[in-house]
């Protein structure tokens, strides 16, 4: 997806970095009301955000609605994007996730139902080092820190993130008391933070 023309300048030849810069510049242009930049932003990011919505919402039509709402919000709120504090794709993903989670909460029937296996014997099947994740320092660091958690903490945290599942839902699907799920996740998050901020 990277333009050969863009990597030639004084950019270091790190494709992940130049993608991020390009996205950041596009988002800044959108904040200035640039409709062409907005369309470019949609082309660059809608598949990712649609993927995010589809993981949280079981109905495709809901995911499409949420995707539309997400970009409406992005158009209006792009001015609030703070390039110093957030990576552009993370900012966009979080808007989409929040809207998708709100949509899922509004429909009690839309909760995920697949059982969650927390037994240690499952091994590390849930952790797949992906090429794309390796392209980002933060992704690599997060993977490393997730590795340090107990298997059940890691599984619960990952499932919660991808599916936007509530504590209650996670407890139900894993056949674990709510209090245990809460404390495992909270302890996991605490450990994760300590590792990430080392």
């Amino acid at each position, binding site marked *: 997806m990277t333009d050969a023309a863009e990597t030639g300048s004084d950019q270091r030849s790190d494709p992940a970095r130049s993608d991020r810069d390009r996205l950041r510049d596009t988002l800044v242009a959108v904040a200035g009301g640039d*409709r062409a930049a907005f*369309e470019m932003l*949609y082309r660059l990011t*809608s*598949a*990712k*955000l*649609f*993927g*995010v919505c*589809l993981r*949280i919402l079981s109905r*495709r*039509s809901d995911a*499409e609605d949420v*995707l*539309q709402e997400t*970009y*409406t919000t992005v*158009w209006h709120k792009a001015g609030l994007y*703070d390039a110093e504090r*957030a*990576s552009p*794709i*993370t900012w966009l*993903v*979080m808007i989409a*996730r929040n809207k998708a*989670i*709100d949509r899922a*909460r509004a429909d*009690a029937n839309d909760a995920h139902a697949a059982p969650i296996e927390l037994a240690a014997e499952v091994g590390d099947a849930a952790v797949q080092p*992906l090429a*794309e*994740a390796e*392209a*980002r320092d*933060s*992704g690599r*660091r*997060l*993977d490393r820190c997730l590795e340090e958690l107990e298997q059940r903490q890691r599984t619960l*945290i*990952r499932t*919660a*993130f*991808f*599916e*936007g*599942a*509530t*504590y*209650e839902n*996670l407890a139900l699907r894993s056949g674990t008391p709510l209090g245990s799920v809460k404390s495992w*996740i909270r302890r996991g*998050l*605490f450990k*994760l*933070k300590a590792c*990430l901020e080392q």
Partner: protein
Amino acid sequence: MSPTGPDMAAPADRNHLAAEYVLGVLDAAQRRAVETRIARDRAFAREVAVWQEHLGALADEIEPVAAPLYVWPRVRSALFARERRGGWLESVGFWRWLAAGSGALAVAALAAVFVLSSRAPPQPAAPMVAAINLDDGRTAFLATIDLEHGTMVVLPVSATIPAQKVPELWLIPPNDKPHSLGVVDVSHPVSITIPAALRSVVTLNAAVAISVEPPGGSPTGQPTGPVIAKGGISAI
């Protein structure tokens, strides 16, 4: 499903709450409470932002899925269509768009299709075509119109429709409401018999459009779903 209020008091929990919000484990009432707090408490908002950066890296693992083609036109019209009072039929943009005509390339391609597929009757009524385009200008369907036999062939080009939905074709004479020409298909050409009562209004001034409808077509006789593509009728 009893919403329990988030514990705002204990400072040790503040960090939990920010992380839990970002992770997505809170229920609806807790989420609202957290959002109110984000708006008021800058330190808390910063914690949320930090957690978003921390956990956001997990999204790298999510596979991108191409969104259906009609989502972008919906985004654009939701944001930028100024006159929405009377729906798209009364929108200035729509009529201006029609006046500008459909893409010349698509019409040329269509003409070729028509010439190849028609048997060139000796004295036909002038054949007509329509490129039914998405808002981004790409052609969703091509239609060839044979008024002599009262038929229309609708060929899918780059149309996608949500699961459990069907595309329905509409004829829109100038200053009139849409008339259904029936359900078409995104995967193969469909031949349509134009109802006798409508043949007289299939003119170069009329438009055609595709809306997204439940299986079997619109239950009301008017479009009930979003209009994803439209086009004017041209002579070859």
